[in-house]
């Protein structure tokens, strides 16, 4: 059981992320647990994961290509993106691609080195669930989600950029 932020609220959650071992495999886990497996493992052993009782989700590393997951997206209840270091911004592009190019509509979760100062941006590019790193207070992180009330760009949350809304006057 862990606390995460999901859709603007703090909720508890049972998903367990499985790391990729050095040899490229993933350890055996109880059949009925909910697990998030690495993309490589998902692609390598589709039968193993799809025959489980518990639910299976996939996590992407920053250098994974989200296109490889495109064909599986409608079967996945959750996709996670790992931020090994918060200054590594590749996951933001991955988030947008999953949402905007591959039309992924399920839960999109940020995990790893994720804290309150990133949440607003992560939300804008399409993430809706956040595992906050243990060194940070999750209640404060929740508040930070609403830090900015406007933005200039076309984003997943607001496809119409500000410059257009200004002129159109909505």
């Amino acid at each position: 059981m862990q606390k995460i932020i999901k859709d603007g609220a703090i909720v508890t959650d049972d998903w367990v992320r499985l790391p990729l071992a050095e040899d490229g495999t993933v350890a055996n886990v109880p059949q009925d647990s909910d697990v998030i497996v690495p993309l490589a493992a998902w692609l390598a052993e589709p039968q193993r994961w799809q025959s489980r009782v518990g639910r299976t989700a996939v996590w992407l590393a920053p250098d994974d290509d989200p296109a490889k997951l495109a064909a599986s997206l409608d079967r996945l209840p959750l996709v996670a993106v790992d931020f090994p270091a918060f200054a590594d911004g590749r996951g933001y592009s991955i988030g947008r691609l999953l949402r905007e190019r591959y039309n992924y509509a399920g839960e999109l979760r940020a995990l790893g080195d994720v804290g309150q100062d990133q949440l607003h941006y992560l939300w804008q590019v399409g993430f809706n669930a956040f595992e906050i790193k243990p060194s940070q207070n999750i209640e404060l992180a929740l508040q930070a989600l609403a830090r900015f009330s406007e933005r200039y760009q076309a984003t997943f949350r607001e496809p119409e950029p500000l410059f257009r809304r200004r002129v159109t006057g909505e």
Partner: protein
Amino acid sequence: MYRYDAIDHRIVRERVEEFRDQTRRFLAGELSEDEFRPLRLMNGLYIQRLAPMLRVAIPYGHLSSTQLRKLADIARRYDKGYGHFTTRQNLQYNWPTLESVPDILAELAEVEMHAIQTSGNCVRNTTTDAFAGVAADELIDPRPYCEIIRQWSTLHPEFAYLPRKFKIAVSGAVEDRAATLVHDIGLHVVKNAAGEVGFKVIVGGGLGRTPIIGEVVREFLPTEHLLTYLDAILRVYNRFGRRDNKYKARIKILVKALTVEGFAAKVEEEWSHLKDGPATIRPEDVAHYASFFTAPAYESLSGSPAEFAAKLAEQPAFARWVERNTRAHRQSGYRSVVLSLKKTGVPPGDASDAQMDAVADWADRFGFGEIRVAHEQNLILPDVKERDLFVLWELAKQQGFATPNVGLLTDIICCPGGDFCSLANAKSIPVAEAIQQRFDDFDYLNDLGEIDLNMSGCMNACGHHHVGHIGILGVDKNGEEWYQITLGGSQGNQTSLGKVIGPSFARAQMPDVIEKILSVYVEQRQQGERFIEAVRRLGITPFKERVYAKDH
């Protein structure tokens, strides 16, 4: 100039509050130094050798008199009474306390200013031609597009954590005065065969450790696609730029690795998904931003009024200043005035609070309340009537801003160097001063003509030494400060990188070395040949031979 609406104000205020909270958490020990560093850098705050340094954004170098007075006021109350204008058209304060920075930002927000993304691995302040909107050779005014890019890049959620810093420059004129070839992205306004206006998109230029001249990834980008195309470039860079080695993380390294064709193909592929999307700029959007940059209420005047012509004839010093420090204007009876921040004995680019106040007053009295910051670290009053020039000259002299050296040897571009910057290998300001002292004869300087002397205190190249006709780079040799010289660099349409002439020199030798280089030019130049042209024709060998000749 652009004015904030309620939303712009709100975004900047919310950013100030966010930074206030981040600073508080750092001071309370809730954020580690490692966690706070990228956050403060993204807001222009460095921890320098002596104190924090705060870099304030001056979007594309435009300031109102109200803003400049506020900058002066902040210098007075939070700093030691001065600020430093940089080669990226920003202003740096060298002495604020960390605790006071959120308050400074709140004050800046009152006058529509901020420090957002003036540092850090994100899209930096967009720069342009300091003469935008008044230059005689302009195809279109680049400022509406600069403002569109400013807004697009400000707090862009996808591109806040890039592999490395990212700089964009825009030029709207025939002559590139924005150094578009040495930026991560250079946008150069061009007309196609059908007479339509678009951008030539240049990617992967940059100075620093690995100086590279940018390459064209698209010859003609219709203006409406500007932002979707920028999104495509940034996305390719964000995903594929190197993050394992900060010296190989700039986009130029990615472009080299993929080849420019390979890089362009990836961008085009990405763009094919974004093109014509909601970020496409409609004519009415451009019109909205262009409405902020209309021509001010010029009087219709005839050129060269009698009283101006008379002063020119009577006062050779005034005539010299007009020739050197003012520029032709589109509007007859007006000129643009360059205020030289390169007086001998003052660190290049520095201005005191009193000087900033004075410039703001002149902008109101003689112009339309606008000031520009040039990337050569001078200030510009874009619209001054010829008949007011004499009065302005006398005032500028009193403030030490009328040194008639714009474009000449002593108009040195110079980074803060070892006096302030913790990355420096060597001091730069004392070298600039020694050279200015040696060459203080304006007749001689004028005879030498246009020479760009650029100096950086380390290979980060904030002083753009690679594109100086004469470049000086501070190097470290066993803990001592030495200086390496390059010749033949230039910016503008004929951008080139200087070549190193040989082993470096001690600080005390520098004025002599420069003098020897100039003596070769004076002896060997042809009729009307500028220094850079002579270097191109002669190559560096004769200069090298003179400089390294054994003493006789």
